[in-house]
């Protein structure tokens, strides 16, 4: 399998597109800043959110019991899935038992994590993704490249080509309004005909047994209120103790995600409507294991706003697909090694450790610290690629021997000055897309000794 660096190299081959990707996400980050600065108590809000989440994680069993009891009292069916396979099977069983064929799904990163669509396809069941960005990438047989902006890797001409092929839109018409209207007609037909709607969950309220789903398009609502069956899927970490806590999280979520004051729709589902059936599937899939790791558990506070994606200099210039996982970006780089340290051993290295992710995180996850700790963890577990191991050993050897270090420095300066071609070859990764620096005449150490005497 290709690692982050290799996949990133493929992404940045197109200079203009890479720059566009970088600038667009930075623009979203700037909108986030503007929205956050409009709230004088922003830092206080982050602190409240962080505390509520930490408290909930430390009392998770109690709140889950409370949530389950209240949801059952509301007439909702509650299912428990230990892993992705069980989650997918539960949903398939519901579909099978009712002979359902028309299914719509709004955005849910959990169902991406569990590869639900793929599983159902193998069982001969088709699911229509209804978030516009997700529908675009579904037509193209691609995964989403960003958890909030699924089609951010595409340009409007790509969307136009895709819609021309699947929705018979006019060839070459790249107008976003025209293309969105075409999707509107197509998806409204799907909503009206749907028998089953699958949604994710943004927040689950222990004290009332309800779930909250946030969208701008209204696709979660169009699906659930038209269909006879609603299945909401959630990782157990979506839980919050009280409804009043939603104020804290809803104030943070959209501002952090896109710079909006709130999403267009914040829908609170408590009971199925008359004649409807509602299911909630609560999933573990490795989360209880993360809960046991003191260094890494607070990643479970994540509310999936993607602020860390938009600010990350590595994500912005390497694209979502380079992370080869459903949840990319800095948060994905600290969550995924929990699930499979070998497969995702490259991700904690896909960072400059600048710390910007931690600064924008609305629930105060120490993302950059965890990236750094994961590097140590992976090294201890023997999951580092050979080249990195050799490099680290070499570095340790040289840094532990001052005379050798000084000789190395002098040699490097000499080589850069007189024989630059020696380092400007292809296998030196530092030479890629970089000019080698001009070598100074002397080292800092020599300069210091010389100047101290004066």
């Amino acid at each position, binding site marked *: 399998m290709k690692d982050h660096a290799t996949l990133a190299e493929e992404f940045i081959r197109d200079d203009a597109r890479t720059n566009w990707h970088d600038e667009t996400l930075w623009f979203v980050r700037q909108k986030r800043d503007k929205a956050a600065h409009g*709230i*004088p*108590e922003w830092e206080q*809000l982050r602190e409240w959110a962080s505390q509520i989440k930490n*408290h909930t*994680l*430390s*009392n*998770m*069993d109690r709140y*889950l*019991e409370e949530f389950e009891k209240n949801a059952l009292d509301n007439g909702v069916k509650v299912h*428990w*899935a*230990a892993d992705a396979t069980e989650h997918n099977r539960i949903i398939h069983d519901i579909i099978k038992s009712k002979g359902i064929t028309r299914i719509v799904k709004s955005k849910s990163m959990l169902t991406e994590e569990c590869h639900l669509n793929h599983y159902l396809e193998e069982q001969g069941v088709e699911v229509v993704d209804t*978030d*516009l*960005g997700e529908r675009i990438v579904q037509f193209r047989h691609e995964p989403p490249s960003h958890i909030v*902006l*699924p*089609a951010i890797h595409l*340009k409007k001409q790509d*969307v136009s080509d895709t819609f021309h092929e699947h929705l018979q839109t006019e060839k070459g018409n790249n107008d*976003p*309004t025209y293309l*969105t*209207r075409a999707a*509107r007609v197509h998806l*409204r037909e799907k*909503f*009206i005909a749907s028998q089953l709607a699958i949604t994710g969950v943004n927040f689950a309220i222990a004290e009332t047994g309800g779930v909250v789903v946030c969208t*701008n*398009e*209204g*696709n979660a*609502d*169009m699906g659930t*209120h*038209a269909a006879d069956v609603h299945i909401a899927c959630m990782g157990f970490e979506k839980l919050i103790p009280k*409804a*009043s806590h939603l*104020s804290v999280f809803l*104030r943070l979520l959209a501002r952090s995600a*896109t710079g909006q*004051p*709130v999403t*267009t*729709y*914040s*829908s*609170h*589902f*408590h*009971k199925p*409507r008359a004649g409807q059936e509602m299911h909630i599937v*609560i999933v573990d899939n490795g989360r*209880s*294991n993360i*809960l*046991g790791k003191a260094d890494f558990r607070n990643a479970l506070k994540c509310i999936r706003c993607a602020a860390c994606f938009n600010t990350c200099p590595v994500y912005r210039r390497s694209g979502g697909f380079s992370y080869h996982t459903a949840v990319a970006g800095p948060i994905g780089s600290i969550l995924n090694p929990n699930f499979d340290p070998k497969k995702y051993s490259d991700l904690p290295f896909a960072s400059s450790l600048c710390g910007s992710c931690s600064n924008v995180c609305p629930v105060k996850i120490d993302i950059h610290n965890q990236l750094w700790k994961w590097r140590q963890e992976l090294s201890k577990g023997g999951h580092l690629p050979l080249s990195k191991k050799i490099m680290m050993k070499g570095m340790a050897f040289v840094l532990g021997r001052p005379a050798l270090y000084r000789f190395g420095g002098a040699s490097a300066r000499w080589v850069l000055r007189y024989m630059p071609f020696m380092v400007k070859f292809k296998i030196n990764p530092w030479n890629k897309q970089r000019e080698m620096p001009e070598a100074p005449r002397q080292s800092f150490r020599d300069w210091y000794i010389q100047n101290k005497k004066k």
Partner: protein
Amino acid sequence: MSSREKIFSAIRKNKPESVPYTEPDLTLVINYPDLLTQFSTVLTAIGGSCKEIASAEEARQFIASIDKGAFVIDTTGDYPLDLARLSPTELSAVDTAIIRGGVAVAENGSIWVTEENMVNRLLPFIAQQLILLIYEKDLVPTMHQAYERISVNETGFGVFIAGPSKTADIEQSLVIGAHGPCGMMAVVIRN
């Protein structure tokens, strides 16, 4: 062991010692000198519109005077007796829905709408245009005060609606009218 038991036993084994938290202190939260101006400004900025009207009677006259298309469902007045049972196909032809909103939030332009208000859960989402009727006295500064005023589970479904349906999924270009209403207006009755 069932998956439920497995999950609970793993959580009990792995959870850290209980940590406390502090409830949000509302004295630290922003307030606005003029709630209606703030509400109207934000709602307009996010693609909605806001009309201030002196009385309920004048609001009725105003709504009667605007173009709402051929198929209007007004849950604040006379509406089809079987509205709750209308099919998605039937509702998809609705041009304008008029619904009473509850608490309205100045900081983000959102309005709380319950299942009781909308009668049919699909109505506010599937209509081409949405008009929400609210009272100025129901304006609050932030979401904190909004959640103090409402009971989220008073009806089986409730939603904060802030403006029309929208998307920016194609090259980050904002398009109003994704799947739901292409226009949303708040009519604010001042007393």
